[in-house]
């Protein structure tokens, strides 16, 4: 802090204290008040100047990165889950269909085989009990 600034601060402080009223101000108080850093004096602050834009950019990047991702539409999420759930029900239905088809095919095949034997007499070979029947 140079002398010019100090004098100016002192004058301003005295002026403000005077404005507060006529109560006596202890001499030590004025010194202590003046000793409080004003924040103006560090001459090295100019060193920070180039870093400021970079810091602002970095802060912006951090802020953007920390912003929550846009929330997924609950309708879309629910619809997706519903489709997955139904696909599993569909699988059950597919298995059922296959079993029904197999059961019907097996039944038809057996019925067809029986009818061929009974109507056409195909593959009919003498059975042990045939003589007993006659």
């Amino acid at each position, binding site marked *: 802090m140079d002398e010019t600034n100090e004098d100016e601060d002192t004058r301003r402080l005295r002026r403000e204290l005077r404005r507060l009223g006529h109560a006596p101000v202890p001499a030590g108080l004025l010194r202590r008040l003046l000793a409080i850093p004003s924040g103006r004096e560090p001459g090295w602050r100019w060193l920070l100047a180039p870093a400021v834009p970079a810091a602002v950019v970095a802060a912006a990047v951090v802020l953007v990165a920390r912003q929550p991702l846009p929330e997924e539409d*609950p*309708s*879309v*999420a*629910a*619809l997706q*889950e*519903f*489709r*997955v*759930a*139904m*696909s*599993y*029900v*569909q*699988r*059950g*239905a*597919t*298995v*059922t*269909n296959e*079993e*029904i088809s*197999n*059961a*019907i095919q097996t039944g038809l095949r057996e019925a067809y085989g029986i009818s061929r034997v009974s109507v056409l007499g195909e593959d009919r070979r003498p059975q042990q009990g045939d003589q007993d029947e006659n």
Partner: protein
Amino acid sequence: MKTRTVPLAILLFSLAPFSFAQNAAGISGGFDFGQIPGISSRPSVEINLNSQMLAFVGAATRSSDPEAEDVLGGLENIRVLVYDLVEEMSAVLEFIDEVSTALEADEWQRVVYVQEETERVSIYVKFNEAAIAGLTLLVADGGGEAVFVNLAGNIDPAQLGGITQALGVGDVMGGIPDLTGGAIGNAATDEE
């Protein structure tokens, strides 16, 4: 009072193995599968859609099917559990048999039953008067996968099948006899 508490506790403990038969969250047609034996891993697919989520589904399908909202509005809950890696399939098969017994005791009707040495497919339906109040699907295939599905609420098979068909999944109810008026009847097969 104490003399009554102890027998009650014993009774509750003795009923514990059948606790899975309780309705899920008190929903008629709901079914909580509880702890499934023979599986230590978490399900590879776990879906739990409550009525609010199903309302979202209805809203999402409104543009393609105006009736979907009403149909899905009747559903109260959909629960799906899929396990890819079943360590002890025999335990899961036993579990399915126990669940089947419990469901039948709770007036669920079996519409599909496939039983093979390493495979089970069971589909149960709970009727509420003339309407369907619940559908439970239990599947264990020989490949080490197990699937458990429960649909609870007022289910209109034909309309629900129409919605799923419109969504590209296919008519999920069309293949299940007794649900869409199929003339095939009960598809139970027993190849044991």
